């Protein structure tokens, strides 16, 4: 192959989410010594000329590449784990990583069923010899602590019965808390936290509708900028919206590593939800590559064929 073609193939293999393993095999595997040297000289994304007379790798670019190589592996493992262990490990990692990852904890606590969340709590005991709530409570500082601990401790009633009067009065409580945001951050309002962390999902959905009627805006609109609180409401009331948003974020051009990792997490854990949205495979098609793409598309297809 001519050098410009090879460079283009290499570039393509390393673009997108995942890596094109087959292309890399044909381009790199039986490259001769001189051929590789030309590759390095021509591929400025990964190599720069060093003053000591060799083409030096750009370590941060290599690091990013390593993430891309890992994606398939991580997707397979995440897929194989028992859902309880999976969620327990995701939560534990998120606690360790800190505030930027607290959204993952909100996501798991709010999108799983009551028994799935209980399962994660049991698995956490087995895996780490501690409870989720004690780790969360001791690592999370500030106003997020109360919200996160409460969300993870919930065992919500799952029946359809809703008391409309209570839903309406609680919508008013929320409305007041949000109106007074300039005096006190909504996340520090204990009544708000109690409502969001103890009421059933149907109740909160009814509350959301009442809120709409009272304020002519949706709760999630009003909570724009309130980070974890917005994710909480969105996950509990309109999970499809939340997951579509996370997915689109992961696929966008300026997605960072953590956003991209969300892609694996969301596809593996929310297959049933995503499959309802027919546009997902198309969104993925142009952006993912290699074995990672095949695995992700395969996961979604298997769900459709059920």
């Amino acid at each position, binding site marked *: 192959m001519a050098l410009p073609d090879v460079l283009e193939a290499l570039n393509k293999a390393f673009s997108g989410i995942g890596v094109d393993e087959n292309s890399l095999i044909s381009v790199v595997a039986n490259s001769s010594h001189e051929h590789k040297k030309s590759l390095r000289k021509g591929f400025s994304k990964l190599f720069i000329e060093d003053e000591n007379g060799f083409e030096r790798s750009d370590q941060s670019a290599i690091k990013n590449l390593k993430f891309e190589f890992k994606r398939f592996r991580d997707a397979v493992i995440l897929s194989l784990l028992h859902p309880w262990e999976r969620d327990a490990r995701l939560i534990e990692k998120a606690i360790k990583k800190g505030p930027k990852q607290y959204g993952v904890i909100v996501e798991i606590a709010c999108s799983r069923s009551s028994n799935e969340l*209980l399962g994660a*709590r*049991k698995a956490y*005991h087995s895996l780490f*010899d*501690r*409870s*989720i*709530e*004690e780790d969360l*409570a*001791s690592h999370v500082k500030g106003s997020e*602590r*109360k919200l996160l*601990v*409460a969300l993870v*401790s*919930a*065992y*919500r*009633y*799952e*029946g359809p*019965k809703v008391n409309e009067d209570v839903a309406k009065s609680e919508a008013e409580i929320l409305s007041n808390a949000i109106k007074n945001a300039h005096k006190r951050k909504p996340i520090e309002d*204990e009544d708000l936290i*109690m409502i969001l*962390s*103890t*009421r*059933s999902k149907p109740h909160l959905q009814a509350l959301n509708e009442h809120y709409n009627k009272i304020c002519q805006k949706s709760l999630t609109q009003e909570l724009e900028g309130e980070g974890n609180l917005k994710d909480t409401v969105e996950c509990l009331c309109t999970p499809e919206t939340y997951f579509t948003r996370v997915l689109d974020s992961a696929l966008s051009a300026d997605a960072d590593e953590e956003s991209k990792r969300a892609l694996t997490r969301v596809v593996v854990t929310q297959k049933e939800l995503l499959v309802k949205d027919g546009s997902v495979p198309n969104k993925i098609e142009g952006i993912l590559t290699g074995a990672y793409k095949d695995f992700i598309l395969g996961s979604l297809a298997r769900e459709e064929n059920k």
Partner: protein
Amino acid sequence: MATLKVPTHVPAPSEDAEQLRKAFEGWGTNEQMIIDILAHRNAAQRNLIRKTYGQTYGEDFLTSLDKELSSDFERAVLLFTLDPAERDAYLANEATKRFPSSNWVIMEIACTRSSHELFNVRKAYHARYKKSLEEDVAHHATGDYRKLLVPLVSAFRYEGDEVNMTLAKSEAKILHDKISHKHYSDEEVIRIVTTRSKAQLNATLNHYNTAFGNAINKDLKADPKDEFLKLLRATIKCLTVPEKYFEKVLRQAINRLGTDEWALTRVVTTRAEVDMVRIKEEYQKRNSVTLEKAVAGDTSGDYERMLLALIGCGDV
């Protein structure tokens, strides 16, 4: 250890159900028959009897009970017949509808049951009341009580013996700091008490005693009239030395101190199959009289006979 006495050869559930049905027939009720059967069957056996009774006679045994009996005796039979998780759910729900002093019942259930038992209570609560336990507690309790009780009923504490001594030391210090500044409902106090495992809490409180010279409950007696402090002390007692807690509840109930009217019934029916042996030992140590004697002196009739049967008196 349990004080419940069950015969080695237990009649078939259908036989027991038939005898119980007979107990309700005719004028009045044969309460002794009820005691002879129910106070001598374990939880699984009682469940089976209740099921069989329902299938055979088309009515829940507890409904028959309610129709025929009243007062303390009925309450004792009702509570004892319920499956433990259901029983706790019933008691907790009742507590959320009563006066603030019933906060104690909620705390007692949350702290003296194992993590798995507490979760079974939450499941039973869903089934019976179509709501979650935590939402009712959040709705009923206010202020500092809510801050303490909701996390207590929502906890799923690690149940192993692993203890981190460094953590025990640092958290003992945190507790001491907060308590010496009278910040009793501080988030850190609540955090430690409501999330740490019982083993970890024990280690922390032992270290507190060693490092600061007083047991934590002594330091928490600073204001004897403070109701929240009383509850906090009781919480700690429940989590670390439940038999001592129950001994005190029984002592106060029998001596007519305090406002916990149904305490005697509640403690006997909920602990007969758990740790009543140890509670009796504590009682005798503290009061120089056996629990049996104290109960006999304080109660009468069928109610007395039921309680005595449950705490292990007499024959099987």
